[in-house]
């Protein structure tokens, strides 16, 4: 299973773009990369998923370089409501390249201030 490494915490201000990078040096060929967001007292919820290059949806973008050993979640123009913990998960996705044992890293606590 690919182990993931993320910064423990990040601070930002409203309206700024936030980029959170996740390292996953031993990612397997079939592994997808998925990012989840978790608010206090709630279960994590899906943000975005990708395999390579760039993926964009209505809330975020995901950048994955050619070697796929890292990925960057980009949140445009954050607001106070984006204050949450963000987890990078490798091995998710339809091919389940990481197997069935889906384990999380420590996550990144993002704090957005006025």
């Amino acid at each position, binding site marked *: 299973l690919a182990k993931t490494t993320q910064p423990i915490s990040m601070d930002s201000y409203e309206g700024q773009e936030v980029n959170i990078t996740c390292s996953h040096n031993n990612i397997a060929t079939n592994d997808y990369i998925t990012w989840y967001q978790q608010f206090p007292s*709630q*279960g994590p*919820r899906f943000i975005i*998923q990708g395999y390579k290059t760039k993926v964009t949806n209505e809330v975020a973008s995901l950048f994955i370089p050619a070697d796929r050993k890292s990925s960057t979640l980009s949140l445009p123009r954050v607001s106070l409501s984006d204050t949450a913990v963000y987890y990078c998960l490798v091995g998710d996705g339809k091919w389940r390249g990481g197997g069935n*044992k889906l*384990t*999380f890293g420590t996550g990144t606590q993002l704090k957005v201030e006025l």
Partner: protein
Amino acid sequence: NAGVTQTPKFRILKIGQSMTLQCTQDMNHNYMYWYRQDPGMGLKLIYYSVGAGITDKGEVPNGYNVSRSTTEDFPLRLELAAPSQTSVYFCATHNEKLFFGSGTQLSVL
């Protein structure tokens, strides 16, 4: 669709008591997971199941048991509750991505 439903939402146990945390889903997903999350920490995988009748241990299975008799239900059993099991427990299903329930907050005193 209700998605993933966990009951109860809150529970206080005394040391040595037992209880079952219920998890049911209506999405017909084969893969189901149990995680625990201690205050200020990340999620730890307890057990998972790839389908009815098949379960396997995760990172922290000691003190817990699971069963999977149907696709819909994946209960988590605590036989002899200990203070170290005070945590928030999340059940999830998986179909290309994880779908989480709202959690059960358990305190063992």
